[in-house]
């Protein structure tokens, strides 16, 4: 197509007429440009499809139908509820009774069947009990509660549940929706921004309304601290040694080949290695961000080493010669001249490696960070590292595997948050590269 054999007859005729050979070459060039454009279009199309589907499925996770009710608990009611076997159930009954009387006071023309009201509410009993046990001074005074409505009611607000799809559902009946409509008109059930989703912890399998990603964000954060603290110094030191100091022999060749190979090892292999070495052999705590971070460090190291070596290689040898020429030692040459010039590349590589580690799920499966339900924030820095926790991608995986449709939308919402973190990291990488880039 593009061979340039010169044995054809010399070109005849005017320069203003295009000969066949030139036409052919121009056509080939046009075709090639068209292929490129088509490839870019296909890529963009899939990107748009991805973004739209993530946003469409994920945005509902950021709102939640809430029941807003004022509720007063007397001391006697508190004592009695605490003395019962099913304590949360007792609280729930008290709350339902209170809600019922309020509805009657307002004169809403709907049936106030306690069973129906129970179906509208999410996990109310435990929330109320926790609140009064933590704030005993509020017993006897009116407290304003924002309680998550049940998953079906939430779905009704988001269009996920309709009257047609509710047939044969034992969680919510069609007639209950009339009650929901009435309560929504009265301002008792409202759809509000779901802060709990961003800041909260995971919930039980039957309570998607209470699920939040906040605690696993903390888990991911502590993992990233471990990854950064270990992989950056080890990776950069390894690269500097291999690139600037190590003699070229079979041993360093072997190391080089192995580092390249490590970068291609499936992450689940690192996971099982982590399980065998860190948990079974070294007896580090299971499901802990410390172990997760160690495993992800193993995974990130090759990335950082390869990118650091590439940026060290990109520093022109003339700079090294200049430094050696004025009598700098090898180490002074590296630390005064080569490393500062390679820094933007190293930073970029590190942040990309961290972003990769942040989104990694497979190794976490094997060290028990998936499926663990962290209900509370770690109490301090140390417990942040060693207390069992989950991580963002692991949390998303857990939600996606749960039956309730409410969790499905939470999984998509979690992906949005994960992507926001990844985008932020990449933007930081770009800014750092722009800022520290120096010309020579």
């Amino acid at each position, binding site marked *: 197509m593009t061979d340039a054999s010169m044995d054809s007859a010399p070109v005849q005729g005017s320069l203003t007429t295009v000969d066949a050979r030139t036409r052919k070459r121009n056509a080939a060039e046009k075709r090639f440009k068209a292929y490129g454009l088509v490839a870019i279009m296909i890529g963009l199309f899939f990107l748009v499809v991805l973004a739209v589907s993530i946003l469409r499925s994920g945005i509902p996770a950021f709102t939640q139908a809430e029941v807003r009710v004022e509720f007063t608990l007397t001391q006697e009611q508190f004592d009695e509820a605490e003395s019962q076997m099913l304590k949360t159930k007792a609280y729930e009954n008290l709350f339902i009774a209170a809600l019922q009387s309020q509805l009657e006071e307002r004169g809403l023309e709907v049936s106030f069947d306690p069973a129906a009201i129970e179906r509208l509410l999410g996990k109310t009993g435990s929330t109320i009990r926790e609140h009064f046990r933590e704030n005993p001074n509020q017993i006897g005074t009116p407290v304003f509660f924002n309680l998550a409505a049940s998953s079906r009611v939430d779905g009704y607000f988001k269009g996920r549940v309709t009257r047609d799809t509710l047939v044969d559902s034992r969680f919510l009946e069609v007639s209950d929706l009339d009650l929901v409509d009435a309560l929504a008109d009265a301002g008792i059930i409202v759809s509000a921004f779901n802060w709990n989703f961003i800041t909260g912890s995971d919930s039980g399998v039957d309570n998607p309304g209470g699920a939040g990603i906040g605690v696993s964000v903390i888990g991911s954060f502590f993992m990233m601290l471990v990854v950064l603290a270990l992989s950056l110094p080890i990776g950069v030191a390894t690269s500097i040694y291999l690139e600037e100091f190590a*003699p*070229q022999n079979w041993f360093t060749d072997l190391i080089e080949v192995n580092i390249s190979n490590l970068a291609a090892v499936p992450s689940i292999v690192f996971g099982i290695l982590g399980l065998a070495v860190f948990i079974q052999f070294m007896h580090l705590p299971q499901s802990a961000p410390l172990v997760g971070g160690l495993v992800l460090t193993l995974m990130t190291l090759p990335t950082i080493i390869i990118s650091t070596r590439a940026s060290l290689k990109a520093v*022109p040898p*003339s*700079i*090294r*010669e*200049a*430094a*050696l*020429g*004025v*009598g*700098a*030692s090898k180490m*002074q040459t590296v630390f*005064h*001249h080569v490393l500062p*010039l390679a820094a933007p590349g190293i930073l970029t590589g590190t942040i990309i490696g961290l972003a990769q580690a942040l989104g990694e799920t497979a190794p976490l499966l094997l060290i028990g960070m998936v499926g663990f339900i962290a209900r509370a924030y770690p109490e301090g820095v140390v417990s942040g590292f060693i207390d069992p926790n989950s991580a963002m991608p692991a949390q998303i995986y857990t939600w996606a595997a749960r039956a309730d449709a409410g969790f499905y939308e939470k999984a998509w919402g979690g992906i949005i948050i994960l992507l926001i973190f990844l985008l932020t990291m990449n933007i930081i990488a770009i800014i750092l590269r722009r800022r520290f880039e*120096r*010309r*020579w």
Partner: protein
Amino acid sequence: MYDIPHQIQETAVTDVKIKAKDVQVYYGDNHAIKDVSVEIENNTVTAFIGPSGCGKSTFLRCLNRMNDTIDICRVEGDILIDGDDIYDKRVDPVQLRAKVGMVFQKPNPFPKSIYDNIAYGPRIHGMARNKAELDEIVERALRRGAIWDEVKDRLQAPGTGLSGGQQQRLCIARAVATEPEVLLMDEPCSALDPIATAQVEELIDELRQNYAVVIVTHSMQQAARVSQKTAFFHLGNLVEYDDTSEIFTNPEDSRTESYITGRIG
């Protein structure tokens, strides 16, 4: 091996700065420098000429052990500076390079300010006790590099922002800032235009007052203009070493004559 011409040996006795004897350099299996013996004099510009790949740059880089940075490079024989064998185990190449400065083919200022470019060497060698002393060293070096007047008002500007000729003079100033005794120049003008070349050549002639200057060049006119001694290398051998005027007017070896008249190389 080639005999050093008799009259050189006589003058060399008086003021020899570098004495190389039977130097062999190997790159892996490649024998790059064969049996080179030469005596380089103080306060003299010595030019190394020869066709590409003849080993002149390799030999130059042996004189401050820059070849140490190449793993497969091996140097045999003796190179003495002021009587000390620079390949002795006790010699630290860092100290050696402070004493034997080098200017490279392509101007290679550090991507730092003009001031920091000059001050770097004195700083790492601890030559200044305070800022005032360092300022003085920087000014002296820039003056010796014949670039002070052009940059004195913008010492904090990046060295990479200067023109090619200015950059090369900055690099020469950087090399002299560490107070070396020998200055090695590896084709210092090959990346410069004729005007910048003329300035650098003038500078080289001035530097001769204080240093032994060794310059590798591809330009025979340049060798003739700036040097007092010329060594002609060919295929790793030192073919001829003599006064520059001798080499260019009355070469002993037929290869030298062929090269300077443009028939080989």
